Structures are given as C-alpha cells and as structure tokens.
C-alpha cells in the first residue's frame, strides 16, 4: 500500500514538472514573450529594452531561466502582473472568494437537482418522466454554454421586466453599482450564472447517475433485498443508491479543480469577477505571468484530484493496490 502511494505521488510530481516545462517552453519561444509589455511601447529605445532584458535575466539560456522560475514558483513568488503591476498571487487571492462562492453554490444546486432526477429516471425507466429528463439532459450536454448564457440574458435581463419596469434579473456583475452591500442584491446577481452552470453540469451528473443506477438495479443483491420483503424505498435508497453513487463521487472529485478555475464562459458573460474572467482578460492582454500562474495552479489541482481519486479507490478496492 505504501509503495503504491509513494509511486503514484512520484508519478504525479513528474507529470507536473513536465507540464510546467511544456508551458514555460511555449511562452519562452513566442516572439516577444515576457518582453511584450515593453516592446509595444514606442518610447522605449533598443538600449532600454536591452537593459530590461538583462534585468529580467532573459539573456540566459531557457533551461537556466526555467530553473529560476520554478524556484520562484515554489516559494510562492509568481511575479507581477504586466497589466496591473501587482503581484500575481495578490490578483488571484482577490478573485478566489468570488469564484468559490459561485462554484460552491453551483455544486450544491447541481447535486440537489441531479441526484433526485437521476434516481427517479432510472427507477421509472421508459416512462414519460424518464424520456423528458433524459432528452433535456442530452440537450443540456450539447448546448454551447456561452450561447445559453446569452439567451438567459436576453430573456431575463432584457425582455422580461419586473413590476417597476426594470429588468427582472441583473445580467452582469456581482452587485448593483452605487448601492451598499445587501444579501438580496447578491443573491439576485447569483441567480442567472448559477442556474446556467447548474443546468449544464446537472445534465452530465444526472445521465451518469441514471446509468449507474440502472446497472445496480439489475444486480443480484438488489433482487435479494426485494425478495426478503424490504420496501421498495429501502431497496432503492439504502441498497442500490449506495453503490450507484460511487462513480458519481469519482466524477465530483475530478471536477473539484474547476472550483478554482471557475467557469470561464459564465464569468466572462456575466462579468463575474472570478478567476475564469481574470484569466480571460489576462490572455487578451497577453499578461504572461498571470496566465502562467493560473495554468500552473489549475494543472496542479487536476493532478492532485486524480491522485485523490486513485487513493480513494485503492482504499476501497484491494485489487488495485495489489496489481
């Protein structure tokens, strides 16, 4: 067991290092690259640029720069943002609570919607209820998310009006400009982005749970539970669901990194000041330090979450760690 864990951890570190090399190499070979913030300025003479290059150590060979950069990253120094001149860590820390609020709420809503619908459509397989939910879920998975967001804005923030003639729901931002913070206002701003995210991810979770429920319901032990006279409710919720939900837990664990990365499209469309929108604007301004930092953190989280899933499985299933 210990060797299995140790090997997986080493593998993960190796993967992360290779990814950091690829990403760093990519940024280094682009003309301009880290210098693009300065080369675009007309008032900088070639001598100025050369001085800046030397100051940043950009004249060193790429491997040397990479090692230095990696050392800085490990101590939490991710450099300064090109556009705001503030430390990248600060920029990320400012936006993180907003993304966590949005994504955390989305996760709760998704589970509240997907779990009952998934169970019901599996139990009532081939009824009209099942057909409607699976069709809607299928459509949800084929929907371009950003377009869905635009439609929500057209309907709820442009067309539909409340009693006071104002749009029914706000279509952008986290709060109404010029108003003091109020919980009601924050909730109003959350409704559209959270429902958009929930619809798309609940569609996926629901289809997943439905098919694993269908697998489980036909197992012998479920038949046994029925045969010994347990109520249908007890069979479904206690015997079947407990096993059917394991694959869903894996899916959720693998989705955890998105709590940090946020929903890039949603945050962009609804002007939600989170990490996804931060990344998008950084990419528009070719703000390399910020782009690199977000990419690295997100990659590390993805690797960590798949490590977590493997560990949980190894603990649950002895066959994996012995092979």
């Amino acid at each position: 067991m210990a060797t299995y864990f140790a090997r997986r951890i080493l593998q993960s570190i190796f993967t992360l290092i290779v990814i950091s090399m690829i990403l760093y190499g990519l940024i280094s070979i682009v003309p301009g690259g880290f210098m693009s913030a300065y080369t675009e300025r007309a008032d900088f003479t070639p001598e100025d640029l050369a001085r800046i290059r030397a100051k940043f150590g950009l004249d060193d060979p790429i491997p040397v720069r990479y090692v230095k950069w990696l050392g800085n990253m490990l101590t939490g120094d991710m450099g300064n943002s090109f556009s705001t001149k503030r430390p990248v860590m600060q920029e990320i820390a400012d936006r993180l609570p907003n993304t966590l609020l949005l994504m955390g709420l989305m996760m709760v809503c998704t589970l509240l919607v997907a779990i009952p619908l998934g169970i019901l459509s599996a139990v009532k397989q081939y009824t009209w209820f099942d057909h409607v939910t699976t069709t809607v879920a299928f459509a949800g998975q084929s929907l371009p998310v950003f377009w869905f967001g635009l439609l929500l804005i057209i309907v709820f923030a442009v067309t539909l009006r409340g009693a006071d003639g104002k749009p029914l729901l706000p279509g952008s931002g986290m709060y109404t400009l010029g108003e003091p913070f109020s919980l009601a206002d924050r909730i109003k701003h959350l409704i559209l982005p959270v429902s958009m995210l929930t619809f798309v991810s609940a569609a996926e979770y629901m289809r997943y749970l439905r098919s694993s429920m269908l697998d489980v319901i036909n197992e012998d032990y479920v038949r046994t539970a029925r045969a010994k006279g347990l109520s249908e409710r007890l069979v479904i919720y206690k015997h079947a669901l407990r096993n059917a939900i394991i694959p869903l837990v894996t899916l959720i664990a693998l989705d955890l990194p998105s709590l940090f990365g946020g929903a890039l499209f949603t945050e962009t469309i609804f002007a939600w000041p989170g990490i996804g929108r931060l990344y998008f604007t950084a990419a528009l301004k070719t703000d390399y330090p910020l782009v690199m930092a977000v990419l690295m953190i997100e990659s590390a989280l993805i690797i960590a979450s798949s490590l977590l899933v493997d560990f949980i499985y190894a603990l649950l299933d002895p066959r994996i760690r012995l092979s």
Partner: protein
Amino acid sequence: MSTSAFPAERTKGIREQSLFLFFWVRFIKHKMALIGGAVTLLIIILVVFAPMLSNFDPMTQDLLNRFQPPSAEHWMGTDDLGRDMFSRVLYGGRISLSVGLFAMGLAILLGCTIGLVAGYYGGWVDAALMRMTEIFMSIPRLFVLIALGMFLRTLDLPFLKPGSFVPISLVIGLLSWMGTARLVRASTLELREREFIQACRALGGSDARILFLRILPNIASPIIVSATLGLAGAIISESGLSYLGFGVQLPTPTWGNMLSNTQSQMTTAPWTAIFPGLMIFIIVIAINYLGDGLRDALDPRHTFKK
C-alpha cells in the same frame, strides 16, 4: 438422419444477412439517431451550397441597413455592419464544420497511431506513450486552448492568411486525441494475442501489415463512434474559442465569432445573438444523437440503455 444443429426446417425463413445490413437494421431502430444523421447531412448540404442559397455576400457591409430584423429579404436579419446574417451563418458554417472535421481527423489520426503502437509493442514504448497521454490529460484543456489562441494571435505568421482556420484546428486536434489513444490501446492489447494475429505473424506478415490491415479494421467500430462524438466536441471547442476571440479571427465568420460582439447588441438586435448559436446547438445535438445511435448499432456488447 441429420444431426445438424441447424436443420433446414429450423433455418427456413432466415435470410443470410451481411454485416452491414446487421448494423443498419440496428441503427434505424434508433429514431433519434436517424433524425440526427439527416439533420447533420442537411446542414452540410446547406453549407456546401451556400453561394447558391444566398443572394448576399457574407462580407459586404451595408451601413444603411444595420440591425434589420429578420424579413423576407434578410431571413435572419442583418448585423452591426449591415451584413446579411443568413449568408454569414451559411459561410460561417463552412469554417466551423471545417475546423470540426480537421481537428477531429487529426485527433483520430494521433489517437489511433499512439494507441496502436503502445498496445502492440508494449514494454517501455507503451509505458512512455501512456505517460505522455496522462500528461496531456492533466492539462487544463480550455485554459491551454486559450493560451495557445493567445500565442496564435500574437504570432502573426506571414504564411497564414488572416482568419485561417488551420492553426485553431491544429491546436484543438492536438489536445483531443487522448481518449481515442486509450481506447485503441486497450482494444489492441486484447487483439494482439488472438489466433488470427498470430497466424498473420507466423506467415511472415510485417508489423505494419498486422497493425493496419488486421488490427485496425477490427477496432473500427469504437473509432467511428469516438470520431463522431469528437466532431461534436471539436465544433463546440471552436465556437467557444472563437466566441472569446482566440479562435478564427473576424471578419471571417464562424458560428462562434459571430456571437462575439452580440452581448452589447442584445437590447436592440437580439437576433444577432440567436441564430449562430442555434446552428451550433442543432448540429451538435444532431451529431451527438448520431454518435449515440452508432454506438448502439456497432457495439453488440453495448447494452441498450436508452
């Protein structure tokens, strides 16, 4: 007396069935897949014959007729520069579908090659290739696509026409082969030890012959399914990237970038935001249903879980 398990009186009325017919019969049972296939075909025809179907040039601006609502003349209205939306949607579809096909083709090519080589040769080759696959799977896909789109925007390569769909297709293809590679590897591992492969090897068949003429045809079904679903995925990726401004650059229309500036026009001209997205949604859901039906038809082991 005959001891055959299939005496003539029992097989009477059963016609011989070709493999294709077998799949076809299973496929047409899947109504949504049939509709999906028909809709996909229809959209491809519309897009291919765009010049004959539209009287307007997709690039010609007509500033006097900006933001015209849908009418008999402009079926989908006009956009912020007075260009005909219907014509732009048709021509944009050419680019969007080309990106989808090109990216999917590249992903399937890479996935099959890597999967076949890893599964067939095993050992350190397999280990190295699978490690590489894992590394690519740990990359935050959307974020890296945006970063690569950012590079392509700044690169300004002289041999590329502005608005070319090639770089974005390459980028999407390079980040979408991993699932296919794992699938092909697993199937190859299984087939490698089978008698007909051993026989081919014993007869002196080269590795290439075994890989491409013996193994590949036998794993065609899952590859076809993953190609179909990959096409839908690539179309979605392109539209998202172009929407954000990191894909195909304006004024070349694609279904994604046509939506780019529509958010500010939504109070005055909501139709500019509706039609391009509707096209993406329709073709993606059609292709997904088609892929679903193909999977049910081509994979006899796949249990019907409609």
